[in-house]
């Protein structure tokens, strides 16, 4: 570090009111004789002024109400995602209850699963927020975190893509006329439920395979470059 570098550091400190007064006098004496440092000071002041002015101007021009509404919308979307899962569980309980002829048994079978699924959703969203808060500070760290999140998501959805058609086929075999249903079950109701469920699962598999996964893989590829 040459002498001018030391004074340039002092210029930065003075720009932010952090230079002790005695060092200020030394800096002034140097600036009176050094063209390079004087130029650095002028240009530093200028860039700092533009940066700060831009900050203030942008902050004044943005409507905080709109931003707050956006935050609330994002939070609502998060809740809606959990709400959709809860709704699906209720539909499952009602459908299975109707088919089994006993809503209590259906609820006892399905509700523990829904509690686990909802807890996992909440846990995952918290874990992701925690991970974001703890990640390193450079852009590379952030990109690495984003790649990890994408990888996990792609792996999870790929597994779902393979499993969903298998479950859909199993449901369809249960919907065939001679399927060995217990006599206590409402046979027609059970068949309708199995057909609707298998169509839903097959639709989900197609949607994931055709739309969601390719988009995520493209995003993942773009992250490599």
């Amino acid at each position, binding site marked *: 570090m040459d002498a001018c570098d030391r004074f340039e550091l002092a210029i930065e*400190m003075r720009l932010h009111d952090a230079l002790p007064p005695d060092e200020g006098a030394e800096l002034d004496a140097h600036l009176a004789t050094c063209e390079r440092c004087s130029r650095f000071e002028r240009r530093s002041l200028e860039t700092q002024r533009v940066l*700060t002015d831009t900050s203030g101007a942008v902050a004044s021009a943005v409507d905080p109400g709109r931003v707050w509404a956006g935050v609330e919308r994002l939070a609502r979307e998060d809740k809606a995602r959990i709400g959709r899962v809860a709704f699906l569980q209720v539909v499952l309980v009602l459908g299975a209850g109707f088919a089994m002829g006993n809503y209590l048994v259906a609820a006892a079978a399905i509700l523990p699963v829904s509690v686990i699924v909802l807890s996992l959703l909440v846990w995952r969203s918290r874990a992701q*927020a925690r991970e*974001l*808060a703890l990640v390193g500070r450079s852009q590379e760290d*952030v990109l690495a975190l984003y790649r990890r999140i994408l990888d996990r998501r792609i792996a999870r959805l790929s597994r779902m893509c393979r499993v969903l058609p298998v479950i859909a086929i199993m449901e369809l075999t249960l919907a065939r006329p001679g399927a060995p249903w217990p006599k206590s079950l409402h046979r027609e109701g059970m068949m309708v439920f199995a057909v609707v469920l298998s169509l839903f699962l097959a639709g989900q598999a197609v949607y994931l395979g055709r739309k969601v996964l390719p988009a995520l893989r493209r995003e993942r590829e773009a992250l490599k470059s």
Partner: protein
Amino acid sequence: MSAAYQLPAEREAALLAAIRGPSHSERQAAFQSLFEAFHRPLLSLCTHLTADRAEAEDALQETFLALHKALPGFRGEAQLSTWVYRIALRTALQVRARRSRNTTSLDAQSPALAVPDEGAGPDRLAAARQESERLARAMETLSAEHRAVLSLFAVEGLSHAEVAATLGIPLGTVWSRLHLARKKLLAALDAPR
């Protein structure tokens, strides 16, 4: 330099207690207070880091959403304001990384950073806009680390100690990093386009 965006310790403790408390309405009110206290400086920071006003708004929204989720788990390892800036920094970098993947460069789109000052004449306004856009383009050439330190120092009311705490570096390092970042910024401004 004023400490406009530094919450007093008692206020910070009260906010955190309300956010962790059982009452939904109190939690909401506390979070809204947090928003009121921090949205301006965070928007400034996000604007410099993303170099785009719309993206800065997105980053700000995502920051507050992340805060909303992570606040109940905040254990006070750092000052609340430091923690808030840290999350904003990372979120803005993430938003920018997403943009650079999709990517329209700043050469193709005009960075909408310069904001009309009602009192200024058209010539001054045009000059200010040009100056601001030139600086935004120069900032784009810097590494995330250098952009972050310059952006944090541009946030009014943020002290160098807070900048160091936000970046997680010692006080001495913050000055040398700022100095290096400034030199690179000036070199980028001098470079022919």
